[in-house]
């Protein structure tokens, strides 16, 4: 299987739709301007000027981890808070904060007082400041209080567990299918997964790893499906999804460290000779060896940042497009921004697959470089 199907969607139709959006977008500012001025004159004296809508703050809040899971409207699923404090472990329900995110509600446990500010938990100050917040803030509104070690079950942790359950359910089913129908044609879920598994084997593992590919297939398949499923879950805006797991740099760091460890521990003598004793005149070693050593670390760091930044950028883009409605404060912008968001969402589906593919193929490439025999 090749990856040409990735490009075989209806490009022409997309171009037409995109042009229509652009046409609508370019003609509509006049309309918005008129609506806005009418709106402004009607309300200038009636109500004080509304607070300006901050896209950056809104988008960053939505891609960040959270102590509660938003369902709809004002409904949240509270998640457990687990803190390691000076008095040992402290656990309570995040619902005790009553959806407060400004440090106004204090939760007292084991003689310690906690507040939540921007989804981070701090030790509360003794007295509230002028705004009723039990934290001291610097001029950029960052809290200065001390923090306990936060080991909570956050939204990302729950999504991680959910994705593990999905992955196990799917692949135990597929594995049982192969056991039951040995040598026969696949059926059901199995026939849906088989082309993708073969794609990972034939297009990612075999070309990069050579004849020793079978040893690394479990890792490559795991990392591919983990990233892909989580990218897709991140695109679901409501409950089972909604968390931005692969757009969390800690998660991508763990994946990159796994690739780093496999590369380093499987590196053969030719790989290490290439790093410490490259075939260059000896006086070049002063430059070559540090550069090669540095390269061992930059490769996984690039893997980590690539996945994190791609997914985060996609989420911020979709959120910003939706936010245009609130920035222009006009209903007429809604069709444009929703249509654009749907268009970007379709591209994000493609990106979800491509990033899983890129991470896996680059992992295979790095491992392949480490285990390559001398020729």
């Amino acid at each position, binding site marked *: 299987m090749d990856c040409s199907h990735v490009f075989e969607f209806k490009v022409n139709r997309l171009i037409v739709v995109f042009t229509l959006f652009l046409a609508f977008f370019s003609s509509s500012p006049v309309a918005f301007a008129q609506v806005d001025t009418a709106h402004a004159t009607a309300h200038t004296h009636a109500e004080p000027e509304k607070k300006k809508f901050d896209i950056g703050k809104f988008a960053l809040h939505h891609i960040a981890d959270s102590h509660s899971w938003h369902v709809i409207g004002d409904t949240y699923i509270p998640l457990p808070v687990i803190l390691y404090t000076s008095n040992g472990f402290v656990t309570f329900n995040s619902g005790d904060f009553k959806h407060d995110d400004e440090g106004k509600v204090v939760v007292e446990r084991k003689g310690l007082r906690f507040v939540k500010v921007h989804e981070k938990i701090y030790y509360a100050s003794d007295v509230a400041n002028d705004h009723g917040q039990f934290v001291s803030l610097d001029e950029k509104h960052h809290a200065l209080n001390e923090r306990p070690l936060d080991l909570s079950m956050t939204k990302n942790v729950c999504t991680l567990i959910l994705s593990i359950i999905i992955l196990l359910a799917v692949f135990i089913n597929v594995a049982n299918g192969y056991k039951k129908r040995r040598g026969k044609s696949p059926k059901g879920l199995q026939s849906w997964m088989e082309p993708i598994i073969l794609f990972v084997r034939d297009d990612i593992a075999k070309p990069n790893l050579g004849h020793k590919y079978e040893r690394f297939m479990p890792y490559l398949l795991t990392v591919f499906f983990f990233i892909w499923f989580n990218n897709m879950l991140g695109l679901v805006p409501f409950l089972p999804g909604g968390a931005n797991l692969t757009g969390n740099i800690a998660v991508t760091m763990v994946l990159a460290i796994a690739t780093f460890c496999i590369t380093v521990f499987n590196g053969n003598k030719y790989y290490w000779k290439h790093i410490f004793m490259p075939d260059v005149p000896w006086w070049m070693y002063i430059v070559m060896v540090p550069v090669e050593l540095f390269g061992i670390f930059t490769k996984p760091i690039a893997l980590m940042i690539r996945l994190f930044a791609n997914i985060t950028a996609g989420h911020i883009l979709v959120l910003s497009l939706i936010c245009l409605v609130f920035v222009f404060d006009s209903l007429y912008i809604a069709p444009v921004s929703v249509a654009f968001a749907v268009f970007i969402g379709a591209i994000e589906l493609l990106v979800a697959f491509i990033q899983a*593919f890129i991470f896996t193929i680059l992992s295979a490439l790095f491992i392949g470089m480490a285990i390559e025999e001398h020729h």
Partner: protein
Amino acid sequence: MITGSIAAIGAGLAAIGAGLGIGRIGGSAMDGIARQPEAASKIQTAMLIAAAFVEAVALFAVVVALMGNG
């Protein structure tokens, strides 16, 4: 008076660089596929990998710009 962060200019410059890079990669891949349509799948794979490398540099710039902004 225009207010804002100079980091936005940095992010924009990075976007120009990445646009040029990915444009060249895509254009050359199209040339290659037009000459040898039977090698399309191999060219596309190589194109994606090369594009990922270019894109990574731009994304580093975006991350730095975000950090500088925050």
